């Protein structure tokens, strides 16, 4: 028997709509209202400025370690805006801008990165999951939520995010494989930011693209310029429509770049060149989008200044509120809350032990201060 070629039905595309100078490919330009475009711009700028401000706060010791998102604003905002309130976001840990869009408060982000459990409380009106730190593990949750959504037939869909590093995890494989087998309404967004801490993409995979992995699972995949918010928007619109109409999952690879360190505890100078970073800075998703909006006549200097100032005000107010909350009482005994619905006797005894110990410490401190006072 001869060797015969196997036809692979799926094909793969790369999509780019806005170039680095903000010039648009008119044939591909998605129809988006002026209001929506400005909302997008504002959300991207908020993500950027908040990130920069958090870096200051971290360096001043006012919050702990956090993973900056700078440079990835288009990949997040171009995709997340397609979710409806009843849909589900299943984030990793570098989607702060997307989470804020979904309703997570800036205060909650600050609380989380300063070590307060209050920072992973999901507001009641929101369906989303909290961020997931173990890399790639959330991908399976998205598939499970998608399965449940399909089972309940409520029309809701799921969007999940992960990085290029996560595609090496078994959970990525299992999550995408199962999602395709069950044809669940999940949009998988890979923010391929080229670096998983110090490991570059070429050491992560020999695949020419991450998008092509979708084909092996039997789902559509597409690679987009992840710094081009219009391309991300257009590709995600298709994937979301497919998911809503029972067409199953999609993998979207957003090619972007982690301009900053992995987290504030990381020093990227140890493993990558400043030249490389500088090249990517030139591809800034925000300035490119701003150029487009100016060309459309939707933004001018005054408009930019107004948005900038509103965003900075919002951030300042949030920092103030969060710091007030963090300076307030922080009852250590709350660490025993919500382990289970009701506290089992052995843990209740441990809580009592801590309660007594703390009371004893407080009383000893009181006596000492009394003596010196």
């Amino acid at each position, binding site marked *: 028997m001869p060797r015969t070629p196997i036809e692979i039905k799926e094909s793969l595309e790369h999509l780019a709509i806005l170039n680095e100078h903000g010039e648009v490919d008119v044939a591909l330009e998605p129809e988006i209202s002026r209001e929506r475009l400005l909302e997008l711009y504002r959300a991207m700028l908020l993500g950027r400025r908040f990130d920069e401000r958090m870096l200051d706060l971290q360096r001043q010791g006012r919050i702990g370690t956090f993973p900056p998102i700078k440079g990835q604003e288009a990949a997040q905002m171009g995709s997340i805006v397609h979710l409806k309130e009843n849909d589900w976001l299943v984030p990793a840990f570098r989607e702060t801008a997307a989470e804020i869009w979904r309703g997570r408060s800036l205060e909650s982000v600050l609380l989380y990165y300063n070590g307060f459990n209050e920072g992973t409380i999901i507001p009641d009106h929101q369906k989303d999951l909290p961020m997931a730190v173990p890399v790639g593990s959330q991908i399976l949750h998205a598939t*499970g939520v998608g399965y449940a959504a399909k089972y309940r037939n409520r029309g809701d869909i799921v969007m999940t995010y992960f990085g290029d590093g996560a595609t090496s995890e078994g959970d990525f494989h299992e999550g995408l494989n199962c999602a395709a087998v069950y044809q669940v309404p999940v949009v998988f967004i890979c923010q391929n930011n080229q670096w998983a801490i110090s490991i570059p993409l070429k050491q992560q995979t020999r695949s020419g693209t991450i998008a092509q992995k979708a084909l092996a699972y039997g789902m559509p995949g597409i690679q987009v310029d992840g710094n081009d918010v219009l391309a991300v928007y257009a590709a995600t619109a298709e994937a979301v429509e497919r998911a809503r109409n029972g067409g199953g999952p999609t993998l979207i690879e957003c090619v972007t770049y982690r301009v900053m360190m992995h987290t504030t505890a990381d020093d990227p100078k140890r493993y990558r060149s400043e030249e490389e970073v500088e090249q990517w800075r030139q591809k800034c998703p925000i300035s490119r989008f701003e150029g487009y909006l100016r060309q459309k006549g939707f933004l001018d200097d005054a408009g930019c200044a107004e948005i900038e100032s509103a965003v900075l005000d919002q951030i300042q107010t949030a920092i103030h509120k969060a710091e007030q909350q963090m300076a307030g009482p922080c009852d250590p005994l709350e660490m025993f809350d*919500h382990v289970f619905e009701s506290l089992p*006797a052995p843990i209740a005894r441990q809580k009592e032990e801590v309660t007594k110990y703390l009371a004893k410490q407080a009383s000893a401190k009181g006596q000492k201060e009394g003596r010196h006072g």
Partner: protein
Amino acid sequence: MAKMTMVQALNLALKQEMTRDDSVLILGEDVGPDGGVFRVTDTLIDEFGPERVIDTPLAEAAIAGMAVGMAVYGLRPVCEIQFSGFAYQNFHQIENHAARMRWRTRGRLTVPMVMRAPYGGGVRALEHHSESREAYWAHTPGLKMVIPSSPRNARALLAAAIRDPDPVIFYEPKALYRAFREEVPEAEELMEIGRSQCIRQGDDLTMIAYGAMIPPTMEAAGQLEQEGIEAEVIDLLTISPLDDSLMIESIKKTGRAVIIHEAPRSFGPGAEIISRLMEGAFYYLEAPLVRVTGYDIVIPYFSREKAYMPDVKRILEAARATLNI
């Protein structure tokens, strides 16, 4: 009432819970037309369909990870892991997510899932099919760890686990799957998770065991009775959170205890049980507390398995030794 094996009793619990609540669904490998390799899910797919009796790809992390997502959505997934020896591939999903979603979100999102898995030795199985690693799960905050010992309590505990608002790891002693039959009421029956049970009363010695170690423990207690020794037997049923109230009351009466489990000795459940007895009844102890356990080695292939597994003789030897002090 019908006399049932543990497999049939577990099937009854699943069937009744799925009938009662359409948010209950099953996912695992070969759970559909095959009915599971031990037939625990036999015929359920005929009644509830493939959307609720989900045959999964061969992927244990997916089974647990998808269950986390389903549970957060509001379903009550019951995962079957074919053998507990393959559950380590989903340990990260259980430890990092199932067990702490409630805690992380301050009660907003919960994971009412069950992970069923057959565990334990004594059935001449292939390697990786005989381990007893309940301590891994019992050591993880946010999990409940349940091990039944008879058809009736297996049914009642599984039903309770499915209704539990928190994740439950449900280890099934596969050596007992078809070892004996017991009357199991057709009508709904639940047992409270987190409660041990005194299944034999006696004043001379306390024996603490669970799962597949209950039959040899009871047999040993029966033989001791012929020697004029009355042993009290406590069946843990829930490994974590550990109910120490009955065992502490018992040892206050007997002053002596033998703890039996097939799990490796070091850092095993027996170590925690002994600590609790020391904390709760130190001044009542008449003799050192004794463990009859598996050893700190890989459970041997089955030609040597017998020497590893605690049995009636080893239990009796330990009991007599502690009684002679």
